[in-house]
């Protein structure tokens, strides 16, 4: 048995030796890749766009993709993030309150829209939010209204149309938009309120109602340079690129709304 353990440890060491070198020649500050912290819900579009940006400019980009809360905590702890793209206004405000946002660089990069989805094999027609009161919608998945942005927005909308108090008991809170989507996909709930981009990304759900942009509260994905980045010039260039016509096409293809001010 001891011999087995030794063999195991030796194997692990060989693996470690193989994995460690390679890129461990720590890049100097100058040729360090641009570090972009982006909300994980933006993974697909950010991967496409940063790859294209690198192809055009030769500047390498490393993407750190996690929940906006995690990204904000990292920046506040001192992470050398060049560009922060948050899916949550509050998290950007939090970083700004610490004085870690480069002044004048913050933009409202993207917007989104709330939609009601049902499992793909369910037929339902919803032409007004009040139709969610029908008995067929016994359980409705939403983001946790106490902190998960998609849930905060859903709550604000349901309150604004006067349905919150009556629907409250039917709501099943999830810890991310993706989690909400998954519960609808498997039919664990009768409907869910997610972003349009989530609905587009899934074959397992069908969109039955779109919250009119003018009625829902403004959903914003703010982007800004942090004061701790190592390459502000390139970061600024990347942020401009993310506002270009080419980037807009990619964002809109995925279902995002590019705010008027940028068009």
């Amino acid at each position: 048995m001891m011999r087995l353990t030794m063999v195991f440890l030796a194997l692990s060491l060989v693996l470690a030796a193989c994995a460690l070198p390679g890129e461990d020649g720590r890049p100097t500050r100058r040729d360090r890749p641009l570090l972009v912290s982006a909300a994980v819900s933006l993974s697909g579009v950010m991967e496409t766009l940063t790859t294209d940006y690198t192809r055009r400019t030769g500047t390498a980009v490393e993407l750190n993709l996690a929940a906006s809360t995690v990204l904000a905590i990292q920046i506040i702890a001192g992470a050398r993030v060049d560009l922060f793209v948050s899916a949550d206004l509050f998290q950007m405000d939090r970083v700004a309150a610490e004085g870690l946002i480069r002044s004048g660089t913050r933009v409202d990069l993207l917007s989104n829209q709330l939609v009601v989805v049902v499992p793909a094999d369910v037929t339902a027609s919803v032409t007004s939010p009040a139709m969610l009161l029908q008995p067929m919608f016994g359980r409705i998945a939403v983001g946790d209204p106490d902190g998960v942005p998609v849930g905060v927005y859903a709550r604000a909308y349901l309150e604004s149309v006067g349905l919150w108090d009556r629907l409250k008991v039917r709501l099943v809170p999830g810890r991310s938009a993706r989690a909400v989507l998954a519960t609808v996909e498997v039919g664990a709930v009768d409907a869910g309120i997610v972003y349009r981009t989530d609905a587009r990304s899934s074959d397992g759900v069908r969109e039955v109602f779109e919250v009119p942009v003018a009625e829902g509260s403004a959903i914003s994905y703010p982007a800004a340079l942090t004061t701790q980045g190592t390459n502000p010039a390139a970061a600024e260039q990347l942020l401009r690129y993310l506002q270009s016509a080419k980037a807009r096409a990619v964002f809109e293809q995925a279902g995002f709304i590019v705010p008027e001010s940028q068009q």
Partner: protein
Amino acid sequence: MSDILRIASFTVAMAALATLVILPPGVALAWLLARRQFPGRMVLATLVSLPLVLPPVATGLILIRLLGRRGPLGILLEPVGIEVMFTRLAVVLAMAVMGLPLLVRAAQAGFEQVDRRYEQIAATLGAGPVRVFFTVSLPLAGRGVAAGALLGFSRALGEFGATILLAGALPSTRTIAVAIFTYNETGQEAAATAMVAVSATIAFGALFLSNRLATSGPWRPAS
């Protein structure tokens, strides 16, 4: 697919490294807790075990506040050119902190099972405490130490909460657990499932070995 194998071997390598890092201090701590009475012993034992019961995110928050560039330890490390956040060092550190309690507890049990008489006999024959430790106590507690190392290694393999905070989810620091999260959040279910299967297989192997070591009883010298 190649991505999945690359992430898996990276994670195994980092977990192995973390296990090696905690082995010397972990064994020393385990021996101290098993064999010595000193003031603050229970406090030390509790502190070491804390990451076992704290939510991993809480451990991650503590680590990131200490080791981030703006944290008290981070400030000390920066002039020496050591940056922890978003590096492989961060991956190893998060794994080490989470694995340490499991190593110490199992190794401590291993030392406690060693019959003190063997140690005493060695001492009466003239062996100093260091020699007693290396020639009697450690070999006799070997199974416990090995079982603990494998437990710590298994825990390190699955570490998520502290890792994603301290090491981020960058291509260069992505572990199995972080990759499962990312694949899930981006709807790449096939990749997520494959990653789960790989992770379960490796963890099964390590845990199986650990259990066999732990349950086969203390090793006794052949008479």
